[in-house]
């Protein structure tokens, strides 16, 4: 009963580079790094806001520095990637039954995009009007 099962060697750190599906998955994974850093920037911003005008202006200067701009552009792109791939997965995660049948996935996704647009407009109005 000696069996030697075949174990396919998979490189631990570069396994995703060979297939475009895996590359896309990893791209989505990497978006979490940007979410984490941006969250940190926001928390620091709140502390700076509490510390007074000078501290707050220092934070603003950092955000609008070249490195700050590059980071925020990347973070924005990755945030969009997160939103679109999260919405794409919604029909799998959220099954809504109406009577005998399920609400079609396209409708659920569509509603999500609608709410997304509404939330974005509200935040923009708050920022523009404030």
């Amino acid at each position: 009963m000696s069996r030697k099962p075949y174990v396919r060697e998979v490189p631990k750190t570069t396994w995703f580079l060979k297939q475009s599906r895996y590359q896309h998955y990893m791209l989505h994974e990497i978006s979490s790094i940007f979410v984490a850093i941006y969250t940190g920037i926001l928390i620091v911003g709140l502390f700076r806001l509490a510390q007074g005008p000078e501290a707050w202006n220092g934070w603003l200067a950092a955000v609008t520095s070249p490195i700050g701009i590059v980071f925020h552009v990347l973070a924005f792109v990755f945030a969009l990637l997160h939103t679109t791939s999260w919405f794409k997965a919604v029909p799998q995660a959220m099954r809504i039954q109406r009577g005998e049948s399920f609400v079609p996935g396209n409708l659920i996704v569509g509603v999500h995009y609608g709410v997304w647009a509404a939330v974005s407009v509200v935040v923009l109005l708050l920022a523009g009007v404030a």
Partner: protein
Amino acid sequence: MARSAKAVPWFLFAAGGTVIAFILPVMIFVTGLAPAVGLFGDALSYETMQAFVGNWLIKLILLGVIVLAAWHAAHRLRVCAHDFGIRADHTVAIVVYSVAAIATAATIIALLMI
């Protein structure tokens, strides 16, 4: 059936993913991109922001968004570490969830200071 503590991080992960999907792009635009190009004038000036964040409703919303984003990112970074070949899940989990806990406490403290 054995009870599992997985429900807690899973809920925070799912709720966080949903909340940031809706709000993060526009938030990054307003706090990160708009000031760089001078959009919205002095919307991010100290006085405006003090008044804006001073509102308890805004504080509650910011707390919800930041805390959920932190826990969502922590859970995803844990998976990310595994995908990049780091096979020390227990240690990674302790690190990322600790950072998320610290971020939660820091957010509460900062909001109380404003």
